[in-house]
């Protein structure tokens, strides 16, 4: 029960006034008469009410108070929210696109998404107990959470599991799915809770719906003020002095010009975020503006955060960036001299540390700075050397055979080259390349990898991971081929260097929420886990917490779904033994299209309803009004009854 005019409750002040009047009331005039005999005949039923005599003195007062109370009640305009008479199945469609995460101070800091859930719960409460309700959540793909359920508790529980969707929502598809779910249900209706900001509103409006559409606009589709980071990039200092520069572009989607503070945080490897620089950006309404922040230290990743301004959407206030060039790697080149390789490594950004295979292995101090090792020949000899073996097993190893004519060598029958789809050999064709001799290592020696390139039917390049460390093996001598003279040689060396660097330092970059990303996992990876480093969504409790882990689905071939809430995540790969073999960072952002143009009035969502001629929208409104039954007439009727009773009491003189 609700009241249309709760302010009328002030009229209840009349109650104490009446009581006061009773207290101040003039007493009855004493008049002596000979006998009650005759009066009693007029004032009948005196005897029958004797036990109630004590009460009588208050009857008039009590009845009057009751009558006044009812009058006040009638003035307050009570109404009963009766169970909606709508029958037939219903599909509850919740818009959970990123724009729904806007929170305005008017709503007490509650997001539109939460408002929509509350309204949906209320709507469920109003429905008849046996109405079958299906809940559909919009998203990249519409999702049916529960189908034809009439248990309200279960429906509400399912509502609670919905989280905002920060990717690109296909609302039209959700609407279309809802409509088809109602196929065959004559009186079914789609109940849509949305803020009206649809990136695909035009597409939605083209739909011809069979079922009636009951549109519940959230927060009256008011314009939303927003400041967003639309670009954040880090330019590394070429000199390597740790003086990196960040460029941030900010868009002002509010009604007025304003200034916001931009803070840049830097996180060192394994360290905490530390404020590294600040800037202030002024932008006119609807414009974007860039700012540079220099003097940033080297870091694994950077975070830009905007503060202040008329900002109602928090999902686009933070952005992450990784240094554009990874820091220089150092490789130990164990070779008797290979100038081509040396130069190619330098081109690939690898600093080669040359050492002769005849010499002693480098000291532990020197080995510290080495990222990986290239063995250019003398593989077996060094492997059998105790000190060398220790060093070799501790680092990723790139072996290059120097096959001699003999049993272990083979000559190719033809020059046909077959490559596998592998990062090391992408773009590599070995066209016009002649290689005369190949080493044929034993099968168990190369069991760690796969043949990614065969030359004339002989494996030429093995690539793989051994003990969590990348391994490469070229079964031919570079210097005995004309490969170093080919233009693809530097490319091969760059890709090989990247492979040797193992991706463990290569971050995953950034992706949109729930976007499918392609990423190569290590071959020994059994399980991959997303660890939440930071969340930058709307901050709803259902979005999860910092530090929690979620197992990634590895069933898709190379396609992985990015986490669904904006923020920074770490993909941790684990091998069979459960050891973490690699970890890479992924910055997840909300879909920019969903969050842009929120300040403009959204396009009117009005899909054609083929069935209801009057239009589902107005029919739904009528339905809402009909569910509200006015109780004023009852209050008035009851009051008249009370007043009749009061008159009867007055007339019979039950007042002393």
């Amino acid at each position: 029960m609700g009241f249309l005019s709760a302010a009328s409750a002030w009229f209840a002040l009349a109650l104490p006034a009446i009581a006061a009047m009773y207290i101040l009331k003039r007493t009855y005039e004493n008049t002596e008469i000979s006998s009650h005999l005759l009066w009693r005949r007029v004032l009948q039923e005196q005897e029958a009410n004797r036990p109630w005599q004590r009460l009588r003195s208050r009857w008039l007062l009590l009845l009057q108070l009751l009558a006044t109370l009812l009058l006040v009640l009638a003035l307050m305009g009570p109404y009963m929210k009766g169970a909606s008479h709508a029958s037939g199945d219903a599909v509850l469609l919740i818009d959970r696109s990123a724009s729904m995460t806007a929170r305005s101070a008017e709503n007490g800091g509650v997001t539109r998404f939460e408002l929509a859930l509350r309204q949906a719960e209320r709507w469920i409460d109003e429905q008849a107990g046996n109405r079958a309700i299906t809940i559909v959540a919009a998203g990249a793909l519409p999702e049916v959470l529960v189908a034809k359920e009439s248990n309200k508790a279960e429906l509400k529980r399912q509502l609670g599991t919905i989280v905002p969707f920060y990717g690109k929502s296909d609302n039209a598809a959700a609407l279309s799915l809802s409509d088809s779910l109602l196929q065959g249900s004559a009186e079914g209706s789609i109940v849509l809770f949305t803020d009206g900001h649809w990136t695909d509103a035009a597409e939605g409006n083209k739909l011809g719906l069979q079922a009636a559409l009951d549109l519940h606009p959230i927060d009256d589709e008011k314009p939303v003020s927003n400041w967003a980071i639309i670009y954040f990039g880090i330019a590394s200092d070429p000199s390597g002095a740790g003086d990196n520069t960040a460029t941030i572009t900010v868009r002002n989607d509010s009604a007025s010009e304003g200034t916001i503070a931009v803070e840049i945080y830097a996180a060192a490897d394994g360290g905490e975020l530390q404020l590294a620089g600040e800037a202030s950006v002024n932008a006119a309404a609807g414009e974007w503006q860039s700012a540079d922040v220099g003097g940033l230290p080297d870091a694994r990743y950077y975070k830009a955060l905007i503060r202040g301004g008329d900002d109602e959407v928090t999902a686009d206030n933070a952005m992450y960036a990784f240094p554009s060039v990874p820091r220089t790697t150092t490789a130990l080149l164990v070779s008797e001299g290979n100038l081509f390789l040396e130069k190619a490594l330098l081109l690939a950004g690898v600093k080669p540390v040359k050492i002769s295979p005849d010499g002693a292995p480098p000291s532990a101090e020197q080995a510290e700075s080495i990222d990986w090792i290239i063995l250019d020949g003398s593989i077996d000899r060094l492997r059998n050397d105790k000190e060398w073996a220790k060093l070799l097993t501790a680092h990723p190893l790139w072996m290059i055979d120097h096959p001699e004519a003999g049993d272990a060598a083979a000559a190719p029958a033809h020059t046909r080259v077959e490559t596998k789809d592998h990062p090391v050999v992408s773009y590599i064709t070995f066209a016009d390349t002649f290689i005369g001799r190949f080493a044929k290592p034993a099968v168990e020696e190369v069991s760690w990898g796969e043949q990614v390139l065969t030359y004339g039917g002989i494996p030429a390049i093995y690539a793989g991971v051994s003990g969590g460390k990348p391994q490469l093996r070229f079964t031919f001598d570079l210097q005995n081929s004309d490969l170093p003279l080919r233009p693809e040689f530097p490319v091969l060396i760059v890709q090989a260097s990247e492979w040797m660097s193992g991706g463990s330092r290569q971050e995953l970059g950034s992706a949109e929420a729930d976007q499918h990303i392609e990423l190569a996992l290590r071959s020994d990876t059994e399980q991959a886990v997303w660890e939440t480093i930071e969340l930058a969504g709307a901050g709803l409790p259902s979005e999860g917490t910092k530090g929690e882990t979620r197992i990634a689905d590895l069933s898709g071939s190379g396609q992985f779904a990015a986490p669904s809430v904006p923020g920074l995540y770490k993909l941790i790969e684990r091998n069979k033994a459960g050891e973490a073999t690699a970890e890479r960072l992924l910055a997840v952002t909300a879909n920019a299209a969903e969050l842009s143009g929120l300040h403009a009035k959204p396009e009117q969502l009005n899909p054609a309803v083929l069935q209801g001629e009057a239009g589902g929208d107005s029919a739904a409104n009528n339905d809402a009004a009909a569910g509200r039954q006015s109780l004023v007439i009852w209050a008035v009727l009851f009051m008249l009854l009370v007043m009749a009773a009061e008159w009867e009491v007055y007339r019979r003189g039950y007042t002393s």
Partner: protein
Amino acid sequence: MNAESGAVQGPRMTSEEALKLLFPDASVLSRLERLRFSAGNRIKGTLAGKRRSSQLGGSQEFADYRPYSPGDDIRRIDWNVYGRTGRAFMRQYWDEQELQAHLYVDVSRSMQYGEGAANKAAYALRLAAAVGYAALCAEDRVSVTLYSSGIEESLPLLRGRASSAKLFQFAAEAISERERASSVPDSEPALSVSNMAEPFLKPGSLPRRSGTAWLFTDAMFEEGIEEALLAFAAAGQKVALIHMLSPEEEDPTYSGELRLIDSELRTGKEVAVGHRLLADYRAAVDGYKEELKRICAERGVDYYFVSTAVPLHETISGLLAAGLLRG
């Protein structure tokens, strides 16, 4: 009023004062001298009177013949009949006796109601004195008894016109005594008199000889009206119920919110008086009168309603017209 206040002072009032108090207009007395009770046949006095008794006796009025039986007074043999038939028949005559009239005046608290001359008790005593005087003038014997919850006071049988002074004095003193009592603010909660028969069920309260009994009352009794009338009839009385109501009781002019206090029970009843309620009340009064009339008719009792607003001489004319008094 001066006479009254004077009467209050002295222990006894003179007959002149009493007469003035009772009958400010003395002309009514001369009219009363010509009236007498209509008493039916229940006349059984002790002395010879002017009334034909229901007994046979020595008057000049022939009643019947009866066969002679030995021992009869031979002076009463009708010799003419004996001459014609040869058989002796006795002539019988009606006896003529005086009438015993008993006047019972209700002086309960409810009877004290009414202003001045319209006071019911005073009016009842005046009326009793008037009819008593008429009876004395008609050579009948008269007694006056005042009762409320019991017999309060009584004047023994009086005879002859000379006794009228005694009657007047008794009535006048009773009036002034009641007035004095009612001027004192409610002394004690009076005993509730709700049964009319109660005083008459006590031994010696009813007349021993048959005669006529007049009850002057406002009949404000919950019960016992039939019982009382029956007791009088059983005592051989020809009963007349003189029902008295003051004008304020008959047609009240109250208005507003009142607390009506019962003069006998002292209980209050708060009433908002309106036109409709007054109309209902008047209907109730009429209904009660009708009820009393019916009760009386069923028991051969004469009923006469007196409003104390009506002057005494008009009431006497009314009694005459109703046949309770005869010219």
